[in-house]
């Protein structure tokens, strides 16, 4: 442990994002998740003799979107190549991928690494080497029938965009921050559903260590198929420590592919790279080189949503939000959309931000949210929240009362709209000055001692009288009006 200060970890990521298309990358078969085995395996997916691939334009559009989102070079010409190897769930005996000329070249992603202990939060640029289109393989299901392996080709041909970074990350925290940022970005631009459980977003992490202050990269090991950020953090931390200890014990790191076991928290070599295949890449003669023209890019650009960075800046300038609130609201497209909707329905921006980042986020993040309600689908729609906040704005209810309405709406305790709930719970604020005057008169009559104290110059007595008045109104009196009328009466 103590030796860590002498070592630097170097991390690069390769992420397979499953693209949100209707059909497979080279055929018209559906890519719906969870179908019965081989019901989505058409003649192309099963690689029957004589079939040919036809590129899905939607997948190309997704890749261009990503390239635009990370401000990357998008070359005019990219080429599909065959990666040749034998495996039962690889029906053609080769995977169609892109090798020398990918659709997306160099770009960059800016990550926010959160504060940790005495280390402050910071921003960092992670360079993207490339992103290329390829097809997914099928799945081998072992042991469904005893002693046999089943092959399910539903997934074969699912479009993937493999996004490769430079070895720019220097800690597990940076790697996780990058992965989270990328995860959010691909959902933000609508090219991936981000579902990690279903394998829509899978990370391979290359880890190596080197003595601090040196340039030469150490030998790397690749942690395959991490499907949660928590596992990624644990796996990198374990792997880093293991490599440091191995080197300090005089050992050598062998280049290898490793798997992370979440039960033991350990990484373990799966196969060493020396035994690796020679993939014999060559351009796929069944597919023409892919041309992406300036016009294609412009057409896709026109469909691009506002990106998080731009939206954050706009939230600050347009709504006067703090940098922190604006950043928090734009970590996810769903949250940002919810905020914009809430404001569109008439809520003021600042209280809307407070409620979304406060009460609503707390509700969504609590373990009590067993139904995994999301911001996009929960009982309190942006329209409802706006209606509630408007009632606070127009003094119909107090902030405290609003919290009670919010609770009621969350659990669906009372059916109906905001006003119906306010009515049913009797939370409507009393703003009739005649009625408030009556209440105050009663309070003053009942508390002569307090009135005396106030007149003797003790300010505290004023607050006590307000409290009495509010109590007498069962919390429904408009506090500002109570304050004003009480002042007037005491001055008389």
């Amino acid at each position, binding site marked *: 442990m103590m030796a860590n200060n002498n070592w630097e970890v170097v991390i690069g990521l390769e992420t397979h994002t499953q693209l949100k298309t209707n059909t497979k990358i080279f055929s018209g078969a559906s890519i719906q998740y969870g179908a019965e085995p081989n019901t989505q395996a058409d003649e192309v997916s099963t690689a*029957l003799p004589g079939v040919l691939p036809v590129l899905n334009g939607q997948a190309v559009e997704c890749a261009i979107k990503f390239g635009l989102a990370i401000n990357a070079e998008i070359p005019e010409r990219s080429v599909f190549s065959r990666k*040749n190897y034998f495996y039962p769930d690889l029906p053609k005996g*080769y995977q169609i991928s892109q090798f020398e000329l990918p659709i997306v070249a160099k770009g960059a992603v800016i990550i926010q690494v959160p504060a940790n202990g005495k280390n402050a939060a910071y921003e960092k640029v992670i360079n993207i080497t490339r992103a290329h289109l390829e097809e997914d393989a099928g799945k081998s299901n072992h042991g469904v029938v005893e002693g046999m392996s089943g092959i399910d080709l539903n997934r074969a041909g699912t479009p993937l965009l493999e996004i490769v970074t430079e070895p720019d990350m220097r800690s597990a925290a940076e790697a996780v921050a990058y992965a989270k940022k990328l995860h959010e970005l691909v959902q933000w631009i609508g090219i991936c559903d981000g579902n990690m459980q279903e394998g829509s977003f899978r990370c391979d992490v290359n880890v190596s260590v080197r003595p601090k202050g040196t340039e030469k990269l150490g030998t790397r090991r690749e942690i395959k198929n991490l499907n949660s950020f928590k596992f990624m953090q644990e796996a990198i931390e374990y792997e880093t420590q293991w490599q440091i200890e191995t080197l300090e014990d005089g050992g050598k790191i062998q280049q290898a592919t490793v798997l992370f076991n979440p039960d033991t928290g350990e990484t373990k070599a799966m196969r060493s790279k020396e035994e690796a295949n020679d993939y014999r890449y060559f351009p796929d003669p069944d597919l023409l080189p892919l041309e992406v023209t300036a016009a294609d890019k412009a057409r896709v650009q026109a469909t691009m949503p506002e990106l998080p960075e731009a939206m954050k800046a706009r939230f600050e300038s347009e709504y006067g939000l703090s940098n922190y609130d604006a950043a928090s609201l734009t970590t996810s497209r769903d949250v940002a959309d919810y905020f914009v909707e809430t404001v569109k329905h008439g809520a003021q921006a600042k209280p809307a931000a407070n409620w979304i980042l406060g009460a609503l986020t707390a509700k969504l993040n609590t373990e009590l949210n067993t139904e995994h309600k999301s911001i996009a689908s929960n009982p309190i729609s942006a329209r409802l929240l706006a209606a509630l906040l408007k009632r606070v704005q127009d003094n119909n209810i107090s902030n405290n009362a609003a919290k009670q309405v919010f609770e009621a709406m969350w659990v669906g305790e009372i059916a109906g709209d905001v006003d119906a709930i306010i009515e049913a719970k009797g939370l409507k604020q009393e703003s009739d000055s005649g009625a408030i005057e009556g209440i105050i008169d009663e309070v003053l009559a009942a508390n002569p001692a307090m009135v005396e104290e106030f007149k003797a110059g003790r300010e505290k007595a004023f607050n006590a009288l307000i409290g009495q008045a509010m109590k007498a109104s069962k919390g429904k009196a408009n506090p500002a009006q109570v304050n004003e009328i009480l002042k007037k009466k005491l001055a008389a």
Partner: protein
Amino acid sequence: MINNSLKTLSQMLAKKEISSVEMTQTFLNRINQYNPSINAYIALDNAKTLAQAKVADARIAAGNAAPLTGIPFAQKDIFCAKGWQTTCGSKMLANFIAPYDAHVVAQFDAAGAVNLGKTNMDEFAMGSSNETSYFGGVKNPWDFDRVPGGSSGGSAAAVAARLCAAATGTDTGGSIRQPASLCGFTGLKPTYGLVSRYGMIAFASSLDQAGPMAKSAEDCALMLNVMAGFDVRDSTSLNHPKEDYTRGLSQMTGDKPLNGLKIGLPKEFFGDGLDANVAKVVQDAIAEYKKLGAELIEISLPSSHLSIPVYYVLAPAEASSNLSRYDGVRYGHRAAEYSDLNDMYMKSRAEGFGAEVKRRILIGTYVLSAGYYDAYYLKAQQIRRLIADDFVQAFKQCDIIMGPTAPSTAFKAGEKADDPVAMYLQDVYTIATNLAGLPGMSIPAGFSNGLPVGLQLMGNYFDEARMLEVAHAYQQVTDWHLAMPKGIE
């Protein structure tokens, strides 16, 4: 009837002189009689065939017949045909029943043509003698001791022996033209991308092209009308406007129908390696063209001598990858016993593939391997461009290029079977057009010692119509294409 042109057969059907069922039955009878010795067909299914003929008769009766409706054709067994055993000449696919139709098959179906059966071929189209077929060799109808050429040997023998009205073939390095030359009929390999490869079992994807094999240029034109056309399912299919390939044929009349035509004669095609008798027949044919008004120009294709080495890098490279899908997992041959996954792969492929296929998979795997890719595959691609450039230069000087199709007439079965390089040289004059993607044709030009000799025509991209006219003009003044082997009348 069996010697009739497609046009005549179509007229007979239209005039109800014969029904499609009767016509089909005539060919089935001939197949029944001669196929056991010739071995042109691998798969026959008379019930299916006759059912198609009945449908065709109904269509003719209803008055909406297309030019090929009711005419019986043979399909090379490289094309998937729904419900038909589709083997590609290999043990690997001996048990494979195609669940879908290749584009070419679907086009013939749509035209109302009748499918007589699937024809024998070199295994996965790798060969020039049909001797690599798992289903045995095919006899050359002109001399049963000799090979019909390959890889479309079954279709070639079927056309020559009149066991079909015409047939389909595919040509990766000469597999339509060389058998056309050796069996004495007309065969056309179109511009790469003119006929969709969908459903045509791949050998070397960047070279494979389907085309017609028939008695005459006119027959080929009628078939190409059905076969050619853009298909979205093949990304290399070219979006070329539909043409009527017969449109200019009727103008090939009079004394000098080819006035103004410039014929290029590549000097490299008339040198060493060309049989002297074959050369004589080809020269005579070219002289005939001069009589028809054409101008003869000597040209050069300086890189053409590199065609064979380049082809035997690129074609095996693509094949090694294309044939990876035959792994015994989903369909095709799987070894009866194996100890683990690798053993299953090894045994299934060792048993399922023949020697020539294995040789090419090995060559292809080698040239794509890390450390060899640049020296072989990449270099070959560069030379391929030089070869294509030769033709670009040549077509600035001439309209059509002519020369021999094959260096010799049909050779004896077994003669070259143990000498792959001698076998590969059979395609020395045909491969360059595949590498360049150009159309090529072979037409009967005469005989040498009783064996047919083909004249090769090479055209510019999409010049099929012109090539067919030029071939038709020759066939108007000669009758080599009407000659029929003896003993099978």
